[in-house]
């Protein structure tokens, strides 16, 4: 009977190693011991070291962790900035990070020495930074309605690309950059084009997006994430919905796009709809996770249009999600969500959870 797979199987006489494998694959989840003290804005795993994690927060800090050096993870270093930090990402190697925030600046952080260099200054808060290792290109997107392109071959210089609206979220696939903006606008750039433009080094350059799209959802775009296989992207809105669409402009591919409702809760017969704050694709399986204001993280198979699983509710809203480069771990930033009609950010748990995924926990439907 199926019951054989329960942990008691260990003591059964017919015990075989396969079962041990299943048992040891039991996923585990823990929270970091030392967490930021204010809302967490971003979590980012290193592409190469699966236990190296950056966390940015509204408490003006960027923190670097080794998630498995000791139980509860080890806080390796903390980099303080003058204003709340809105995004962080790893740079060319494990010792370089880029951050941006409400000091309007895009910073490079040397994680070893702690030295911070201002790469550029926007005219308003900077919402998002994305680094493309292949193109050696750092892109920052700001509420001032511009992108800054930093060609890291030429330190200290950057180019400004004016776009139609404030940037709310950005994500890069191997060849594309998706910029989600206010007014439900979405621009898709080819990273090659951006890299070339950055190479010219003019101060202000007009770069034609490869595609301009309107969000397929009716409400404000909250997050966007590109598929690791370069086929398309998922975006989410403040109205508990996620859309999946494909880059390929052909009618067939465009007909495949869809959106679905999620992160909603029935309360006294009323449907309470939470914003979907976070989206992240699994680098190996190509499935994706969504995190919402309801504190729930769900894993989805975007191709088979299935929900793979939904995790137990976290104690507060899920603000960001990141998978490690090998897809073994997922980091979930949990902080109280700011809701309309509130005067302040509510009190609540501010924690980063690390979940170790079992072998096929995030695997989609097999073909």
């Amino acid at each position, binding site marked *: 009977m*199926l*019951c054989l*797979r*329960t*942990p008691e199987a260990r003591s059964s006489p017919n015990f075989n190693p396969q079962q041990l494998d299943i048992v040891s*694959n*039991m*996923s585990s989840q823990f929270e970091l011991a030392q967490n930021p003290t204010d*809302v967490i*804005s971003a979590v980012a795993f290193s592409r190469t070291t699966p236990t190296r994690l950056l966390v940015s927060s*509204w408490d*003006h800090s960027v923190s670097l962790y080794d998630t498995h050096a000791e139980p509860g993870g080890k806080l390796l270093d903390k980099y303080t900035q*003058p*204003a*709340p930090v*809105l995004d962080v990402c790893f740079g060319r190697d494990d010792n370089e990070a880029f951050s941006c925030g*409400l*000091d*309007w600046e895009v910073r490079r952080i040397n994680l070893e020495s702690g030295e911070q260099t201002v790469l550029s200054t926007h005219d308003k*808060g900077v*919402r998002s930074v994305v680094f493309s290792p292949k193109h050696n290109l750092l892109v920052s997107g700001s*509420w001032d309605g511009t992108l800054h392109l930093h060609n890291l071959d030429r330190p200290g210089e950057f180019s400004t690309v004016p776009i139609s609206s*404030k940037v*709310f979220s950005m994500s890069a696939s191997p060849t594309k950059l998706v910029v989600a903006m*206010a*007014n439900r606008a979405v621009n898709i750039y080819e990273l090659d084009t951006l890299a070339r433009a950055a190479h010219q080094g003019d101060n202000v350059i007009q770069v034609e997006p490869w595609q301009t799209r309107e969000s397929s959802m009716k*409400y*404000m775009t*909250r997050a966007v994430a590109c598929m690791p296989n370069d086929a398309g992207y998922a975006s989410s809105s*403040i*109205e508990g919905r996620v859309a999946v669409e494909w880059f390929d402009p052909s009618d067939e591919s465009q007909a495949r796009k869809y959106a679905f409702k999620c992160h*909603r809760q029935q*309360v006294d*017969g*009323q*449907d*309470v*709809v*939470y*914003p979907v704050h976070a989206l992240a694709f699994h680098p190996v399986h190509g499935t994706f996770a969504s995190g919402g*204001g309801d504190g729930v993280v769900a894993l989805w198979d975007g191709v088979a249009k299935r929900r793979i*699983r*939904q*995790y*137990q509710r976290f104690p507060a809203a899920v603000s960001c999600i990141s998978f490690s480069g090998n897809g073994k771990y997922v980091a979930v930033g949990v902080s109280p*969500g*700011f*809701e*309309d009609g509130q*005067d*302040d*950010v509510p009190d609540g748990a501010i924690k980063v959870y690390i979940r170790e995924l*079992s072998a096929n*926990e995030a695997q989609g439907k097999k073909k």
Partner: protein
Amino acid sequence: MTKKRKRWPTLEEKKERPWCFYCERDFDDMKILISHQKAKHFKCDRCGRRLNTAGGLNVHMTQVHKENLDRVENAIPGRSGLDLEIFGVEGIPADVKQQHEDEITRKHFEEAKARAHKSGNPLRDGYSTGGNAVSSKRQKTREDLDDILTRVVKFRVDKANGVLPIPPPVEIVPKASPPVAHSYGAPPAQASPFLPGGQFPPPGQPFPPNAAFPQPGFGAPPGFVPGGSPVGGMPPRPGSIPGPTGLPQRPPFGGPPPGVPQSDISASVDDLIASAAAAAAPPETAAPAPEKKSKKDKNIKLVYFDDNISPEEKMAALQRYSASVRK
């Protein structure tokens, strides 16, 4: 269809009811018990899947969520063990079953005794106290032809004089409710709108049989019945309608003493009605609300609904960050 439930089921009937091992609740029907167990005790809190037994849920938890089940949810203390394979009433250990039946028996006789004490009726035979504790049968009235004839004559005279017909005298329970119920919010002048002539009903007068429970001045939407009184063209049965719950009893009608102006009485009655209405107000205001909700197809509440300003921008504008945010 389930059997019609008796008001006072016998002990045997009570013992036959299926009951839940985990929470000691009993049910009309085995189907309901099983769906209760699936929903309350064997439901996966991760994905909401409803399993048939605790063992099934355990296997599901291990395989699907890679987690271990340690107890049955919502069980009373001592009953949350996973070792018993319970399905419906099957699998309940004999001693627990015996204990449950003893408890039913004890409660049954306790209730019967309390009822007998209250009603003053003798205890029925040891087991079946089924049947009615209080006789609700109306007393038969005996009339011979002469009595009927005099009534017919009286009726004709009354009708000619514009006096409403008085049906044969019936024992009326003074707390008949309809006059209270239909005049919510009605102005004092219309305190008794069912009497077009403005005349107060004489003592012991039941409803005129053709008055189809008038509802003027009643603020609730159609279909809402205060205190569960019958409505919709059905004339209220005289004498047997219990007062709506939450309403104080009406004092017995006394006919208007001669010389007292009609308006005084209707005003005092109206005071009574007003206080009664106040007491009964909560159900009135609470009931229409769900109706409204069900009418609305899209009853949703957006946690965040701004179209163009992201949560981060709003947070950045908060007082607590004002010192550090660059402007």
